[in-house]
């Protein structure tokens, strides 16, 4: 095989060129849609009759009725589509990263793991498309007026979306099926570029679909009084919530995808028949958890940005979500996120047993666990509940004197940021557990790291308590940015310091596979909680539109235009999660099945089903 090390600049050049092509293709596709709308702008006297039309205003009787609640039906189908869409968009992201790592370290394990992850993604892809089609059909059937309006607003952009799917499918199939054919040298570069293109197209699909969602929540490019579409496609797409949702969904997809493939690895670990398999799937599970928690850490910031933009767009909408009728959902959210954090942390703690260097850090675990539990208790405390008159008299007011203050944002911010810092600490301790640091300045490094943790924690508590309870609202809200930056400071400095301090470190032996079965259940808890949480938060996002299809522009007069009870929400979310679980099992089974090969039936009629890699 010809070595390509003689042409490094040529290779790099090709990669860069192709990456640039990605950018150009993306931008052109987007601009093409925008350009034709721009030329038909306000200067032109000829205007399509459609732009004069106000938003439709169907009355209750105008809504089609097929005998079941339209809202519930679309809810489940949409949620399934979102689950699978998240999965198939996320997996190629970290698959590409893992493939690059494998390429740079020349370690086949990474490449094989990346390939195995893609198998799952490919099977899920068809199901995603099926749910997408079903969703479209059900929306046109059950909400024709809304869809008329949305088609009017978005025009040919929806065809761009459809066209992108052709591109996505082609790239996906070449990327997966051509994996072994494009394995080394220049061809590997080509394969990596295909992976990059695949992710670029996938991300474009994500942001295009997001624009429909955010348009319904915070419409732009339309006349506020009538709903007539007066802006071009960019103005319609680029509403105030578009980019916050793009960022939040992009990161959340990666966290979710990592968690799902982690469950796959955990399942295979528990079913492993020999130590090599156990070691392989243990390592795979660790890698998935790493990806998932890594993506999970910045997620609250993206969610915070989204919520802040919602508040900026409409304070009423924001307060409805977190201070009004939907506020209880955020208490449930606390339960979910604490499950995720506890599961992720627990997995790291049990995983530390793989290396003998972990004994040094065991003492820290109980403190981290304490902070996590306390943080959860604070986060889950409501500001008030519906008291009876007798209870109010006993309390002496509408809020509990001690627990009341824990129910508002400053306390919750302190709780969540401390929990995030502690999770990162678990991470850092795990990464140090199998190394002995040898750099000469380690005392300085460790002192600095410890100081950063201590001062950051103190800063977060100070900002939360002082600005939260002793200053006015504007400073209270602004202080949360201090808390965010402090947490980010810890994470970034932790990564940088460790990278520098690990240079030349002595690596202790890590026994992959040497981990309890209990720990694998943490890897199941993670995607279950993620899935349930995604459905719950998706419901919140939809529900804050209250009785509007398109907020303030097109009212919802359907029979389902009310906010359902928490029990109903819990049932629907559970139904979606269970459905997703069933489909996921099917996908894992198919992924497994495709690697199975039946042996020919022997002369003594003793068929044997043998497992093995195809």
């Amino acid at each position, binding site marked *: 095989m010809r070595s390509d090390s003689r042409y490094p600049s040529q290779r790099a050049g090709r990669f860069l060129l192709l990456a640039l092509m990605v950018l150009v293709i993306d931008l052109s596709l987007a601009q093409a849609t925008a350009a034709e709308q721009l030329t038909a702008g306000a200067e032109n*006297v000829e*205007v399509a009759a459609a*732009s*004069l*039309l*106000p938003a439709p*205003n169907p009355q209750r009787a105008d809504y089609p009725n097929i005998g079941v609640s339209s809202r519930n039906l679309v809810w489940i189908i949409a949620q399934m589509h979102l689950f699978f869409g998240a999965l198939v968009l996320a997996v190629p992201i970290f698959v590409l990263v893992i493939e690059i790592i494998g390429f740079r370290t020349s370690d086949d394990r990474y490449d094989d793991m990346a390939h195995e992850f893609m198998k799952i993604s490919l099977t899920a892809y068809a199901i995603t498309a099926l749910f997408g089609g079903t969703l479209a059909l059900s929306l046109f059937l059950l909400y024709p007026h809304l869809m008329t309006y949305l088609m009017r607003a978005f025009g040919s952009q929806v065809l761009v979306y459809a066209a992108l799917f052709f591109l996505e499918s082609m790239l996906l199939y070449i990327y997966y099926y051509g994996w072994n054919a494009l394995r080394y040298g220049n061809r590997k570069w080509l394969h990596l570029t295909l992976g990059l293109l695949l992710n670029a197209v996938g991300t474009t699909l994500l942001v295009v679909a997001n624009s429909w969602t955010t348009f319904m929540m915070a419409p732009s490019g339309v*006349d*506020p*009084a*009538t709903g*007539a579409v*007066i802006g071009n496609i960019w103005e319609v797409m680029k509403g105030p919530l578009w980019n916050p949702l793009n960022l939040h969904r992009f990161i959340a997809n990666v966290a979710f995808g990592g968690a799902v493939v982690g469950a796959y690895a955990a*399942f295979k670990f*528990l*079913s492993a028949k020999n130590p090599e398999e156990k070691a392989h799937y243990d390592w795979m599970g660790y890698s998935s958890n790493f990806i998932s928690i890594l993506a999970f850490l910045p997620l609250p910031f993206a969610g915070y940005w989204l919520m802040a933009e919602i508040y900026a767009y*409409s*304070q*009423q*909408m924001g*307060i409805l979500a977190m*201070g*009004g*009728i939907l506020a*209880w959902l955020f208490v*449930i959210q606390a*339960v*979910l996120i604490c*499950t995720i954090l506890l599961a992720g942390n627990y997995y790291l703690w049990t995983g530390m047993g793989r290396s003998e260097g972990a004994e040094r850090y065991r003492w820290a675990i109980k403190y981290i666990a304490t902070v996590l539990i306390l943080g959860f208790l604070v986060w889950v405390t409501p500001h008030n*509940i*519906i008291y009876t008159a007798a209870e109010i008299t006993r309390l002496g007011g509408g809020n509990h004197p001690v627990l009341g203050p824990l129910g508002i944002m400053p306390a919750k911010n302190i709780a969540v940021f401390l929990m995030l810092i502690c999770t990162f600490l678990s991470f850092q301790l795990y990464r140090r557990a199998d190394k002995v640091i040898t750099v000469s300045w380690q005392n300085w490094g460790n002192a600095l790291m410890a100081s950063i943790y201590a001062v950051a924690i103190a800063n977060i508590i100070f900002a939360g308590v002082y600005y939260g309870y002793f200053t*006015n*609202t*504007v400073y209270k*809200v602004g202080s949360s940015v201090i808390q965010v930056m402090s947490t980010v400071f810890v994470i970034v400095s932790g990564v940088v310091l460790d990278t520098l301090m690990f240079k030349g470190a002595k690596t202790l032996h890590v026994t992959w596979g040497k981990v309890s079965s209990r720990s694998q*259940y943490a890897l*199941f*808890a993670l995607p*279950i*909680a993620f899935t*349930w949480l995604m459905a719950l938060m998706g419901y919140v996002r939809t529900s804050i539109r*209250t009785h*509007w299809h398109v907020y*303030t*522009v097109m*009212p*919802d007069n359907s029979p389902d235009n*009310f*906010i*359902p*009870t*928490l029990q109903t929400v*819990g*049932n629907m*979310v*559970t139904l979606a*999660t*269970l459905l997703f*679980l069933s489909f996921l*099992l099917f996908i894992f089974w198919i992924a497994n099945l495709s690697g199975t090969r039946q042996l020919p039936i022997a002369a003594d009629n003793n068929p044997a089903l043998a497992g093995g890699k195809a």
Partner: protein
Amino acid sequence: MNVLVKVLSFSVALILIFTGVAYVLPQMEGAAPEETVVDVGELTIESFVAMGEELYQGKGNCALCHNDLGRAPDLLAFDVTRASRERMADPRYQGAASDVEGYLRESMLQPSMYVVEGFGTKGSGDAESPMPAVDKPPIQLSELAIGAIIAYLQDKDGNPVTVALPDAAAGNDDGAAPALPALVQSAEAAMAKYGCAACHAILQSAATLGPGLNDIGSRQSIEQIRDSIVNPAAVIDEDYLVMMPEFPNMTLGELKMIVGFLAKQSGDQS
């Protein structure tokens, strides 16, 4: 198979725990606002005030922000009439209200006219209010509803209610969405809607306040005609003072129809 059963049981159990949490929390259902018809003839001051209180807590969404959590002044915690007078006397007050009722109405329809110190949008230095205008979506209170809420706010502290009870002709709903302005379908109808013929000689009018428009198409280009309507000060004939009003509610479609019609007026007909 054993592994599958164990994993499935664990997963389902965990899911059921989450579902359980949703069950034990307080249950609330949020109905969409309904259009109830109020018999205006039967209203008394008491029932008007009571209607205002109901709106304050319900459809008006006032209590969502105006409470003790610090996002907006807690109106139920102080004398609103007295506070209104104090704010109108504040040197920062730039509004047009001269009495308490006017101030309260202005606060609801133009919240940014005067923002109480410390409650402005972040970074605006109390120049901008985060409160939405209550007569627009999503709140969309009718004149009747707004009057009722003002009456409630005046009455709750024992102050006299100055809001007049609406008469039967003033409308009979308590906050249904105002009818969307009907879009006109022809240039003539659009020009009638905006009253062009009141000042300009066009169609059958012989008005002379503004330039005659019967031959505007041969005097001005399409861009100039358009600009005259959208930005009169930039284009208007020096002979005429800038008396032409603005039309912020004119839709693009109406504008195009009018401009298209005027561009065809070349004076041949008269």
